[in-house]
């Protein structure tokens, strides 16, 4: 593509072409992803494999030297304890990596977004469509995770199902953060910094061991991280011990998703339209 077409002709098609509404635009972008991923179903399918390996390895292998753990007074096997924790972490990982590495590639390398914005598509439709695709992919992986928890008898079927929406919320909230990070990233190596934050957050998130293991000062740091809220919420639902106080977790994730969603939209529109 010629550089001159990279910036969007703001007035060129208004009048001649009907600008689609936000929802229609999102749907088009979603459809585009669906078509372009059709040949990559094997890659998508193998994405189920990784969290499953973690669950089997850590759940049963680690479980053999740890035994049972108690969560909010209920004693559960180690596999039942980490299952929902890994489900929440993989929901985070899925959308976070989709909205960083994949977004960055389309934004800077293939410049696909420049091309898409030459059409009547709006920036809201683009960001919304890409984000909903990322969340939908994560939703499929989470659904497999729910089935695995039920199949391995690590959670009551209804409880496991009730944890599924929590992973969608998690995926959406982290996807918004990822899109914002992408808008600030200058080079691939900038994402190394993200990984250096994500990895200790994952290990400390209480996915692997309860919060009470930490000394008090560290507990408040862990509490402040978003993944802790995602893990605790998902686990409370999956183990059937959720209560009204878990709305704090929901609120944390909703606010994070909204704030970063707005920020991502604003940053990307500045990057792509100006």
């Amino acid at each position, binding site marked *: 593509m010629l550089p001159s077409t990279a910036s969007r002709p703001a007035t060129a098609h208004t009048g001649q072409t009907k600008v689609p509404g936000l929802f229609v635009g999102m749907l088009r972008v979603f459809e585009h992803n669906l078509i372009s991923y059709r040949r990559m179903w*094997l890659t998508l399918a193998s994405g189920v494999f990784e969290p499953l*390996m973690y669950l089997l390895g850590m759940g049963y292998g*680690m479980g*053999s030297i*740890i035994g049972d753990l108690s969560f909010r007074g209920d004693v559960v096997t180690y596999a039942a304890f980490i299952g929902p924790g890994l489900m929440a972490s993989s929901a985070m990982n899925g959308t976070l990596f989709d909205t960083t590495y994949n977004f960055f590639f389309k934004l800077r390398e293939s410049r696909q977004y420049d091309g898409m914005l030459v059409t009547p598509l709006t920036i809201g439709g683009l960001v919304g469509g890409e984000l909903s695709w990322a969340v939908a992919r994560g939703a499929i992986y989470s659904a497999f995770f729910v089935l695995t928890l039920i199949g391995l008898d690590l959670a009551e079927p209804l409880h496991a199902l009730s944890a599924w929406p929590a992973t969608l919320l998690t995926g959406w909230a982290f996807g918004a953060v990822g899109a914002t990070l992408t808008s600030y990233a200058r080079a691939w190596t900038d994402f190394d910094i993200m990984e250096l934050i994500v*990895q*200790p957050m994952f*290990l*400390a998130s209480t996915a692997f061991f309860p919060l009470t293991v930490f000394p008090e000062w560290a507990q408040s740091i862990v509490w402040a991280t978003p993944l802790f809220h995602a893990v605790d919420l998902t686990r409370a639902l999956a183990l059937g011990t959720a209560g009204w106080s878990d709305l704090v977790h929901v609120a944390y994730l909703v606010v994070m998703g909204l704030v970063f969603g707005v920020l991502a939209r604003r940053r990307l529109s500045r990057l792509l339209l100006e």
Partner: protein
Amino acid sequence: MSSSLTASSITAGGLARILEHLYVRTPAKYRSVLVSGVVSPAFFLGLLGLGLGSLVDERQNGATTLGTDGYLEFIGPGLLAISAVLWAFGQSLWPTAGEINWDRTYVLTAATPVSTAEIAVAHVAWIAIRFTAAAVLFTMVLAVAGAVASWWAVFAPLAAGATALVLASIICGFTVRQENEDTFPMLLRLGAIPMFLFSGAFFPLSGVPAAVGWLARVTPGWHGVELCRELAQGSVDSHSFVHVVYFVVVGALGMVYAVTGFQQALSEA
């Protein structure tokens, strides 16, 4: 082409020349290996070794399942070896394919008097050398954290470097035979992730089904974990010798696989 006459000769001078080139040219040469070889395993050591470790030690309380005094001593040397596994996978797929297919650096290198065999060996060695340097630092971290019980531990970075070398030779041999990168994510998921989890770094293989345990025992990851742990603990015996023999034999086979792969790829390129 002159290189066809000397395609399989390997001389110290040729290797040194390519390594020097790689040394000068690698961008951010310390950052990525420090992250993979020191910072990332240090996160695991701090959060799983201490956090999860406090639970394990409480439950195991004097049991001999781990074979070490505590969980920190168990997981510490294991992390050294499996970060070699992850590093070898990370460096042998996309970055290796890049040298041949995208940057085409080695296509140019092959037109100079160095042989393709030298390119292959130096490429694999460069992956292992960088990791060994980081492993020296992480072994010091282990010593400071109290996860090391013997002076034999000074050889642990070499054991971890050997793990990276053996694995990198096999994966590079695979990579240069691929038409495109489509198979790489699958290899990570079916190779790197299981080897990371089931090499006995986090838990003893007695905790998994016997078949999984035996499958794990043929991988470089398991031999690396065991050897690093034996060195860190000072429990060096005939088992340790078996690991060394494994590395020599599988490493030699892997290197032949890598060299023939490079020769094939560079003669076509």
